[in-house]
């Protein structure tokens, strides 16, 4: 187990209570083919707290990925208020890391160079951050693969590289958009344990979007339940699992009760 030697520079000035992301009445409208507006997000209000692991769960088309992309500054919202550390979000923030559903690695870069991509784009001093990149590769269990190329790695390993990449520029928050959706069930369970460990060791705020209810309950400190057409937040559940979680936690009574509660939410609405 390795802890990062570089202490996070993102210590909030306003104290732990200030939300990293603050969303008030966010609405997203798309123009359909025939020009009629389609509402992707009904007014959505949500605070992402400093250092928390927040899971967003919902069926496909419920707007959870749209919400994440709006948070990332990749697409604009139509109305409402959105702030990152108290400042309105108008575009991509350098203080965010993103993990996509696919690993999105560049096959012409080595594993280490892929992790260092944000460093190159943000023109940070490479030589100062290379050490941190190696530490992150150690955390995700890939320190022996630094000089390999992505096509030599398994799907799970590639996704771990992309997690290290999302952390390398020391962002305040990491946004994850169904990062394990393309992995097989067993790799996925392993990755769930890994990401909990990485969250604890890196002390980052993580926003994790998934359509798997067990995954959301296992990972999140809080679980946001979203329902579709238009996407809205139905309920926010605070999970009651212990902070130290292993896969046995999935067979605990609390886990079963909470997944049942969330599932009934979707079942009762025929989703």
């Amino acid at each position, binding site marked *: 187990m390795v802890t990062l030697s570089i202490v996070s520079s993102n210590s909030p000035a306003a104290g732990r209570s200030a939300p990293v992301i603050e969303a008030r009445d966010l609405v997203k409208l798309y123009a359909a083919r025939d020009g009629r507006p389609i509402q992707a997000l009904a007014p959505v209000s949500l605070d992402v707290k400093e250092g928390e692991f927040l899971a967003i769960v919902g069926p496909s088309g419920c707007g959870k990925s749209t919400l994440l992309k709006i948070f990332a500054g990749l697409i604009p919202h139509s109305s409402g208020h959105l702030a990152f550390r108290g400042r309105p979000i108008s575009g*991509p*923030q*350098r203080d965010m890391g*993103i993990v*996509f559903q696919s690993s999105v690695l*560049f096959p*012409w870069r080595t594993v280490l160079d892929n992790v260092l*991509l944000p460093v*190159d784009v943000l023109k940070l001093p490479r030589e100062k951050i290379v050490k941190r990149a190696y530490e992150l590769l150690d955390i995700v269990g890939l320190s022996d693969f630094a000089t390999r190329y992505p*096509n030599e790695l398994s799907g799970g390993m590639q996704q771990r590289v992309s997690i290290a990449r999302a952390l390398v520029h020391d962002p305040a928050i990491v946004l994850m958009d169904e990062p394990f959706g393309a992995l097989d069930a067993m790799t996925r369970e392993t990755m769930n344990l890994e990401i909990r460990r990485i969250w604890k060791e890196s002390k980052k705020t993580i926003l994790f979007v998934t359509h798997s209810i067990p995954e959301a309950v296992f990972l999140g400190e809080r679980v946001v339940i979203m329902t579709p057409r238009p996407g809205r937040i139905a309920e926010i559940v605070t999970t009651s699992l212990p902070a130290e979680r292993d896969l046995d936690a999935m067979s605990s009574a609390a886990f079963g009760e909470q997944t049942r509660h969330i599932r009934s939410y979707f079942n009762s609405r025929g989703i």
Partner: protein
Amino acid sequence: MPKMDSAAGWRFRPEYILIPALFVIIVAAWEGTCYFLKIPSYLVPPPSMIWRAFVAGVGSGSYIWNALYTFAEAFGGFLIAAVLGLVLGALIAQSPLAEKTLYPYLITIQTTPKVAIAPLFVIWFGFGITSKIVVAATVAFFPILVNVIAGLRAIEPDKIELMRSLNASKWQIFRMAQLPNALPIIFAGLQVAVVFSILGAIVGEFVGSKIGLGNLILQANTNLDTAGVFGALACLSIMGILLHVAMTWLQRRLVFWANDASIPTS
């Protein structure tokens, strides 16, 4: 470098025998047909005669000199086409407006047989090397342009979003994501273009020239020296193969992550 299966060691494959065997069979059948059917050598010369013409051509230095000249024309044209294709292709791929504006003109130029314009180039640029370089560049330009545009467009939206999420500039997205991502497809275009550039150089020489393998073929043809025509053709084949091998080598080095991407296009 990633490990390469082919570099693991030399292994015998059936084609190592079959390729030369087929060559021997073709040459023997050709020679036999010419001999037994008494085909006049000005119509179809036997391989033995072509070989003598080839050896004489190489020995006198005539093939070497003319081949170098044709190579210079083709390669010069290829380089110009590559630079223009890259720059214009990049501009068109970045800007939908540029594409919409230029598209009808590009289609017009592309559908016009470039060979038909070659006489004009000789009028404009003379009988020397310039007109041949221009013809070669014109012919080689389109496969490069088309593949540069297709290659730059072929990038997955996720890669662009990743770059955008890092606040990357347009230039950074182009240089660090789009261009390397396009290289396998661009190289497929370069492979086609390198062959086309030889074609262009020969056409240019056919229209009017004093030196070059195309000129040599025309001269031999006029003299009914059919073996000489075949000898010069062999030179052209060798040149084409060498250029292809050189491009493949360059591709393996530069696009090492996608070694099987040489899909022929055009």
